[in-house]
C-alpha cells in the first residue's frame, strides 16, 4: 500500500477514536461513538496487513487464525454476559489488553536485540511493567467481582511491606534491564510486576474495585502508547495516549462521583492495616446513585410516578418537584403523582404543598387509582416518603403498619428514593424496598437532590 495512503488511513483511525470517546461521553451519541470506534479499529486491523514498512510476512495465516480464535472467545463472552456481570468482563478484557501489550513489548525487545535505542528500552520496560501489573491486577478484580474470591479487602500482617518491597524490586529490575539489557532481567521484571499487580489489588474493597479497573485501563492505554513508540506507530501512540489521558480523568471523576478519595483507594494497599478487614460493615448492600443517574433514568422513561411524603414537606421541596415534573412533561414523559392518603403528618398534607406549587389537580392520583398503573410505570420517584411504600404493611404481620394499604411501587421498573439517610419513617420500621435490586437511592435533602436532578436533566 502507498505509504502516504497508509499513513493517512492511520490518522483517520486515530480521529475515529477521538470521535468515539467524544461520542461516548454523551447519552445521545454514546452508541454511535462506540460504533465509530469499532469501525476505526476494524480498518486499522485490515490495513496493518498492508503496512508498507513491514516487509516480512511469516505468519499471516497463523495471525488470521489467532484473530478468529480471539473473536470466537471474545464475542460470545461479551454477548452472553448478564448486565450485572459486565464490570468484571471489562476488567478481564482490560487485563488481556495489558497482557497483550506486555507480550508485544517483549517480542519486539527480543526482535530488536542490541539494536534497541535507550528510548526503546525504557519504553519496553515501561510496557512490560505496567502491562503485567494491569494483567494480573485485572484478573484479581475479575475474581473479586465474580465472587470467585472474597470481595473484602484482603490484608495480611506486614502486607504493606511486602507490597512496597515488590514495587521496589520491580523498579530495581527495570533499572537493571535498562542498564544491562538481556532477556532474563526482563522476564524477572515481568514476574515481579505480575506479583505486584496481585498485591496491589488485593487490599482494595469491593466498592473501590471499579475505580481500580478504570485506573488499570488508563495504565494499559499508556502501555499501548509506549508500544507505539517502540513500533514507530503514530496510531498506537495517539490511541494509547487518548485512552491514558481520558482514563485518568475518568478515574478521578468516578472516585468523585462515588465519594471516594482516589489517593485512599490507590494507596490503600500501602496503608491498610489488617484489622481494617474485620471492620468492613455487615450492612445489607444498597445501590446509591448520583443525580445524573437519576436524571438519566427519568429522561429515558415513558411514564414516571412521583410519590411524595413527609420528607417533601420537611424539605419544602414542592416547588422543585413541580419543576422537575414540568421538565419531564416537556420532554414527553408522562408524569403523575401518586398520593397516599396518609402521606405526611396531616390529612391532605401533600395536597396543601402541591397546590402551593401549582401542581395541576389532574396530576394528583389517589392510591387506589394509581396502584394498578405501576406495572406500566418505568420509574417511581419517591420524594421523602417511606412508610407509605413499605411492603412490610403487606408482608409482616404484627408490624405497626401491617394492614395499611400502601402504594405498590415495587411493580414499577425502577424505584428511586430521595432521602437523607437509611433512617426509617414515622412508624420506625425498616423498609425492605430500600435494598431491592430495582431501587436506587439518592441521599440528601430532597430539595437539594431534586435541584441537582433538574440541572442534570437539563444537561442531557
Amino acid at each position, binding site marked *: 500500500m502507498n505509504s502516504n495512503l497508509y499513513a493517512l488511513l492511520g490518522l483517520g483511525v486515530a480521529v475515529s477514536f477521538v470521535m468515539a470517546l467524544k461520542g461516548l461521553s454523551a447519552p445521545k451519541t454514546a452508541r454511535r461513538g462506540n460504533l465509530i470506534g469499532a469501525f476505526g479499529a476494524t480498518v486499522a486491523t485490515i490495513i496493518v496487513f498492508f503496512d508498507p514498512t513491514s516487509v516480512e510476512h511469516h505468519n499471516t495465516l497463523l495471525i488470521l487464525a489467532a484473530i478468529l480464535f480471539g473473536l470466537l472467545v471474545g464475542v460470545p463472552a461479551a454477548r452472553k454476559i448478564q448486565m450485572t456481570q459486565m464490570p468484571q468482563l471489562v476488567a478481564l478484557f482490560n487485563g488481556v489488553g495489558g497482557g497483550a501489550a506486555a507480550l508485544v513489548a517483549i517480542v519486539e525487545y527480543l526482535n530488536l536485540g542490541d539494536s534497541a535505542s535507550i528510548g526503546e528500552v525504557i519504553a519496553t520496560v515501561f510496557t512490560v511493567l505496567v502491562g503485567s501489573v494491569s494483567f494480573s491486577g485485572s484478573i484479581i478484580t475479575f475474581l473479586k467481582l465474580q465472587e470467585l474470591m472474597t470481595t473484602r479487602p484482603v490484608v495480611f500482617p506486614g502486607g504493606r511491606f511486602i507490597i512496597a518491597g515488590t514495587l521496589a524490586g520491580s523498579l530495581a529490575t527495570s533499572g537493571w534491564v535498562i542498564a544491562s539489557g538481556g532477556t532474563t532481567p526482563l522476564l524477572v521484571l515481568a514476574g515481579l510486576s505480575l506479583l505486584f499487580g496481585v498485591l496491589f489489588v488485593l487490599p482494595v474493597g469491593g466498592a473501590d474495585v471499579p475505580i481500580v479497573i478504570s485506573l488499570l485501563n488508563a495504565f494499559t492505554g499508556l502501555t499501548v502508547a509506549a508500544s507505539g513508540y517502540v513500533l514507530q506507530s503514530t496510531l498506537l501512540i495517539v490511541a494509547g495516549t487518548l*485512552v491514558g489521558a481520558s482514563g485518568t480523568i475518568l478515574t478521578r471523576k468516578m472516585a468523585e462521583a462515588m465519594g471516594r478519595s482516589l489517593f485512599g483507594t490507590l494507596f490503600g494497599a500501602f496503608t491498610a492495616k489488617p484489622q481494617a478487614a474485620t471492620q468492613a460493615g455487615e450492612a445489607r448492600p444498597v445501590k446509591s446513585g448520583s443525580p445524573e443517574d437519576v436524571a438519566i433514568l427519568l429522561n429515558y422513561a415513558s411514564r414516571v410516578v412521583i410519590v411524595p411524603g413527609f420528607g417533601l414537606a420537611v424539605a419544602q421541596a414542592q416547588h422543585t418537584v413541580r419543576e422537575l415534573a414540568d421538565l419531564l412533561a416537556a420532554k414527553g414523559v408522562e408524569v403523575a403523582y401518586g398520593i397516599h392518603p396518609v402521606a405526611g403528618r396531616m390529612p391532605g398534607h401533600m395536597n396543601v404543598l402541591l397546590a402551593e406549587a401549582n401542581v395541576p389537580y389532574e396530576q394528583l392520583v389517589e392510591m387506589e387509582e394509581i396502584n394498578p398503573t405501576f406495572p406500566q410505570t418505568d420509574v417511581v420517584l419517591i420524594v421523602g416518603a417511606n412508610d407509605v411504600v413499605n411492603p412490610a404493611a403487606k408482608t409482616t404481620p404484627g408490624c405497626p403498619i401491617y394492614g395499611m394499604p400502601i402504594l405498590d411501587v415495587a411493580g414499577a421498573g425502577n424505584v428511586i428514593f430521595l432521602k437523607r439517610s437509611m433512617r426509617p419513617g414515622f412508624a420506625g420500621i425498616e423498609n425492605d424496598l430500600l435494598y431491592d435490586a430495582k431501587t436506587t437511592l439518592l441521599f440528601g435533602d430532597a430539595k437539594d437532590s431534586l435541584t441537582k436532578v433538574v440541572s442534570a436533566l437539563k444537561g442531557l
Partner: protein
Amino acid sequence: MTTMAILTIFVLSVFVGFEVVSKVSTTLHTPLMSGANAIHGIILVGAILVADKSTSTLETTLAIAAVVLATINMVGGFVVTDRMLEMFKGKGGKK
C-alpha cells in the same frame, strides 16, 4: 519521526483525551471506560506487526498469544460496550 514530534503528538493527545471526556455524565462512566478499554485493544495492530515478522518459535508463540489477547480485548470490548448502551437505544432521538 523525531522525538520532538512524538512528544508534541503525545502532549496534544493528552489534551484531546482530557477534553473529550471532560463533560461525561455519571451514568456513562462505565460505558466510557469500557469503550476506552476496547480502543486500547488497538495493540492488536502492534501484535500483528510483530507476529508477522517473528521467526523464532518463542517469539511467534508469544506474539500469537498477544494477537489472541488483543483481539479479545478489542472485539469483546466494543461488543460489551454496545450492550451496555442498549438502554439508550431508540429513545436517543426523543426530545
